[in-house]
């Protein structure tokens, strides 16, 4: 019994070992070919591939596409299948190693490109594609160089020409990739038989598809949209250093091992407390990254003191590049590093405008793709399958309204001078139109920025003295001029330093501190009250009222708008200047005494000149506050952006009504001699169906220069809904130049009373 039982155990073991051996035989002998292929493909980085998500579209609030990714026909090469006559990969590798400086490497690159230019491959391909030979040679060289420096694997496909014609692309695809693949399918990997197949005209060529950012409406809303670019090399290498790519992964593993070995046991135990894991046990960088990420700032300081300062730097994110989930996964364990061997995938990054501000939302989630064979063979877990389709985010909907933006652009572009227009909802701060003149075509910036024609276009934009890339509505600071009077008057009324009945005498000028301050054109306004002051823009009265209030008392009101960013969701917004004591102290050099504030300075501030500076969006916010009962709203350009609760200026309805009356008269009082500064602009070319209120401004900013022309206001005057501001750089008188632009914009939108335009889209809401 005893022995027979041992016999039974031996038998069972025999059966179990046979099963294990059988399985081994099945895997290694019966299914060898399949696994061999899978493993080859993995070596190529072919079985898992990073598929970049296309960048999300940008639309107007009505849903019209302003920018989107569209398919793009590319030509790529595989360096291992390339058959060149002269240049070899080894040569490039050797040259790279021999090069001592960056300059030398550049020189080498030029030499190689010059040689590649005369390769039969390049000459014939350039002919077929109608592509520039040097560009093509540059692409081939970059691909080979990437392999030489191990940024790409030998068998990876690398793009050398983008956006070729669809016909040529299809033709090439038929004779290259598919033909070759069919050969492989027929004959397996038998090299001799494959070479029997007709050699494709361009060995090594692969036809690939990519996406490209396209702005279908050209210059429309360009300053809002901004543009995209490829990551620059420093940015990309920053990402590589972050451990995303294998090359640096090895280097970091070595560095970490060295650091780890140097840790003393006390340091190690302190670190273990913080990490919850013994640092000397950590072999895996992904694990280390995750542990370090969890630390609080104060804990990070401790860790840095424990000799891990270098490692902490690894987890500091590059400033402009936040990694999304799938990129973070690359750092982790359990995922194939071959995925990381592929280059970064979608390298597009927002450079300006909403493309930059909402870069993270627009980028979407990249994903890893597995070969089809793997699904069938292994019943791949569903989570991988789900992620096969890269997830793009929903379109980014802007608050920009088609009709308003069109109207604003038409009006603004009718002027020669550079300038900007904003139309904004006074209650929620959503910007309906934002235009800057001159315009640029964002398509010009979409990579690739190579090729002679493209370079020329870019040079034109870069060298234009009118700086078309500047978004003048938020990125330019200008003297505000008389628009400032509206808030000065409102504050004076609120503080009881001015009553609506009080009158001033205006002889056209006023002396102060040995200086003479003029009204516009030295025009004497005679007896002036607050209404007439706003209507006719009397400087003499404003100076005196402004001096009564004073810069520091005006500050609590004015500084809610001026001297700070409005918080619009666009990059590069400027602060502007409100020149109160704080500002002067801040800008005074160390050791020098702060400039004294004189009554004359108050005079200047009251009419928005001197050191005072403002952006167009700030002027719009001011007018919105006048119109909506004294609330400072936060402007926004994304429809779904959270609305911040408006900040109240603390002005009573009584004071605001008086100012609003003045602003209304400025546009709508036409009595001869009492005429508002903007009456002519709005009432000589056909009446608008909407009543507008506003304030002109002619802002002197430099002695002898033509002043900036402004007109800012709101409409409908009786029941305000929208605020706007128009600014034209060095264009002349506000009422004569900026007023007509605003009129033109409103006429574009509403039509005139005699020929009204049907505008229901926004006005009806």
């Amino acid at each position, binding site marked *: *019994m*005893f*022995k027979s*039982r*041992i*016999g*039974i*155990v*031996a038998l069972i*073991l*025999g059966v*179990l*070992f046979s*099963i*294990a*051996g059988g*399985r*081994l*035989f099945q*895997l*290694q*002998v019966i*299914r*060898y070919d*399949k*696994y*061999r292929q*899978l*493993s*080859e493909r*993995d*070596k190529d980085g072919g079985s898992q591939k990073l598929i970049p998500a296309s960048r999300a579209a940008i639309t107007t609030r009505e849903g019209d596409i302003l920018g989107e990714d569209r398919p793009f026909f590319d030509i790529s090469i595989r360096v291992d299948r390339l058959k060149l006559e002269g240049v070899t990969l080894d040569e490039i590798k050797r040259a790279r190693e021999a090069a001592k400086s960056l300059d030398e490497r550049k020189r080498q690159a030029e030499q190689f490109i010059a040689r590649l230019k005369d390769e039969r491959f390049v000459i014939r391909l350039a002919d077929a594609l109608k592509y520039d030979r040097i560009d093509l040679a540059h692409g081939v060289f970059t691909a080979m160089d990437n392999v030489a420096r191990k940024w790409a694997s030998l068998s990876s496909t690398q793009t050398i020409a983008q956006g070729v014609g669809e016909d040529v692309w299809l033709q090439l695809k038929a004779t290259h990739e598919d033909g070759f693949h069919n050969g492989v399918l027929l004959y397996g990997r038998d090299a001799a038989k494959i070479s029997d197949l007709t050699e494709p005209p361009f060995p090594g060529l692969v036809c690939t598809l990519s996406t490209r950012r396209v702005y279908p409406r050209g210059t429309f809303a360009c300053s809002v949209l901004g543009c995209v670019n490829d990551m620059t090399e420093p940015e990309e290498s920053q990402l590589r250093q972050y451990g995303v790519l294998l090359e640096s992964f*090895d280097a970091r*593993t*070595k560095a*970490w*091992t060295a650091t780890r070995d140097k840790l003393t*046991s006390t340091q190690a*135990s302190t670190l*273990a407390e913080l990490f*919850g*894991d*013994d640092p000397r*046990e950590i*072999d895996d960088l992904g694990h280390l990254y995750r542990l370090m990420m969890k630390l609080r700032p104060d804990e990070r300081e401790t860790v840095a003191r424990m000799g891990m300062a270098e490692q902490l730097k690894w987890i500091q994110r590059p400033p402009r590049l936040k990694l999304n989930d799938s990129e973070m996964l690359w750092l982790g*364990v*359990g*995922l*194939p*590093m*071959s995925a990381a061997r592929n280059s970064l995938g979608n390298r597009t990054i927002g450079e300006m405008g909403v493309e930059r501000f909402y870069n993270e939302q627009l980028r979407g989630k990249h994903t890893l793709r597995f070969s089809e064979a*793997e699904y069938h063979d*292994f*019943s*791949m*877990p*569903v*989570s991988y399958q789900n992620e096969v389709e890269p997830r793009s985010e929903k379109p980014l909907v802007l608050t920009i309204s088609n009709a308003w933006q069109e109207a604003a652009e038409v009006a603004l572009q009718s002027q020669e001078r550079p300038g900007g227009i904003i139309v904004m909802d006074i209650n929620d701060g959503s910007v309906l139109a934002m235009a800057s003149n001159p315009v640029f075509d964002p398509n010009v910036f979409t990579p690739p920025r190579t090729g002679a024609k493209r370079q020329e276009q870019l040079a034109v934009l870069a060298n234009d003295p009118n700086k078309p890339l500047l978004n003048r509505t938020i990125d330019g600071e200008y003297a505000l001029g008389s628009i400032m009077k509206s808030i000065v008057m409102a504050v004076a009324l609120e503080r009881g330093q001015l009553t609506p009945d009080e009158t001033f005498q205006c002889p056209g000028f006023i002396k102060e501190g040995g200086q003479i301050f003029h009204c516009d054109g030295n025009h004497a306004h005679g007896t002036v009250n607050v209404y007439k002051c706003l209507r006719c823009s009397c400087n003499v009265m404003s100076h005196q009222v402004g001096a009564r209030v004073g810069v520091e008392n005006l500050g609590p009101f004015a500084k809610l708008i001026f001297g700070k960013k409005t918080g619009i969701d666009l990059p590069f917004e400027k602060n502007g200047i409100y020149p109160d004591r704080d500002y002067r102290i801040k800008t005074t050099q160390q050791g020098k005494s702060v400039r004294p504030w004189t009554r004359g300075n108050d005079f200047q501030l009251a009419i928005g000149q001197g050191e005072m500076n403002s952006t167009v969006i700030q002027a719009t916010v001011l007018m919105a506050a006048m119109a909506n009962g004294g609330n400072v709203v936060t402007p926004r350009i994304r429809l779904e952006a959270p609305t911040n609760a408006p900040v109240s200026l603390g002005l009573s309805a009584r004071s605001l009504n008086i100012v609003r009356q003045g602003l209304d008269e400025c546009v709508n009082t036409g009595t001869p001699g009492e005429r508002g500064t903007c009456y002519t602009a709005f009432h000589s070319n056909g009446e608008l169906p909407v009543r507008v209120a506003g304030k002109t401004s002619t802002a002197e900013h430099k002695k002898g220069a033509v002043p900036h022309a402004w007109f800012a206001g709101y409409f409908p005057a009786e029941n305000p809904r929208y605020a706007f501001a128009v600014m034209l750089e060095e264009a002349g008188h506000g009422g004569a130049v900026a007023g007509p632009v605003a009129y033109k914009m409103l006429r574009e939108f509403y039509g005139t009373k005699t020929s009204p335009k049907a505008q229901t889209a926004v006005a009806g809401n």
Partner: protein
Amino acid sequence: MADTFRAQPSSVIRLPHVDVILLISVGLVALLSIIYVTSAAQNLPGGGASYGTKQAAYVGIGLLIFVAIQRVHYMTILRFAPQLYAGIVALLIGVFFTRPIKGAHCWYDLYFFKFEPSELAKPVLIITLAYYLMYRDSYKTLKGLIAPFVLATIPLLLILKQPYLGGAMAFAPVILVMLFVAGAKLWHLALTCFAGASAFIVMFFTTMRSFQQDRINAWLNPQQHQHGAAWQQLLSQTAIGSGGLFGKGLGQASQNLPEKHTDFIFAVVAEEGGFITAGLLLALVFIAAISGLGIAARTREPAGRLIAVGCVTIFCSQVLINTCVTMGLIPTTGLTLPFVSYGGSSMIGSFILLALLVNIGSKREVVLAKEDFS
């Protein structure tokens, strides 16, 4: 003390009856281990050579311990079974008060060496069971089975709690086989198996750590599995399959397989050495197991038999579980391949088991018990 048990007249046989086949096959396995650990660790920090050297050193230490154990009669060791058992339970409890490494309470950090009490628990448990079972026949009743199971369950639960599912799983068959060989009734054992399986299922839904559940879920239901646990097996399967009949050659493994020098070393052997080497490895293990069973069959002393059977079973169950994991036949458990995986505790633990086995084989004990257990 030991002499009281040494009933064999000293003049009869001076040379120990060493099972040469067993030693040769295990020696070859250890040699393969050093070669393939060096190859598998080549991309790890420190380089493959350092891992290979360390592994060779562990083999050396293992051999020293092996020789030391041969100096003692196994019956002497057996006498201390209660003390050893108490000691290992204390060590297993004590490990929970140490700092966790990789999130588990599996190791004592002795600075120069990481000591894994669960490796030591294997021989101690086998000895304890043998000690308990040797002169009894209470296990022939269902009630009598309770005591040995409780004895075994205490350390197993502690190991499970570490958490080290693989270690606990590999040991479960040992209890069954030892009781079976001792002569327990088959239907009793079947009943216990059923109870154990039920307990496992209950535990699965109640106490098991989420990552353990994930691994099992991944294996049972890859289509709905949400985590990457199946990924590792996928990689190792591809690696093994792509090795083919003759392998890719040393250092040619293309897969980036996690834990490839420890738990997944078999995949490296199969990929680089091909079916020839991996098959040879399995065959060597099987030959060693059969010679081990031969020792058990030749030993008439009941405790020796049981220890020998226990040692063979734990060895085989570890090998089978580990290789089947790498070949995608069962879920990932995190179990080392004895004598092959990189690691001191595993290597030394394996050598202790081997030493016990050889010890029993070389000390032909005078029969102290009835001819048979039945």
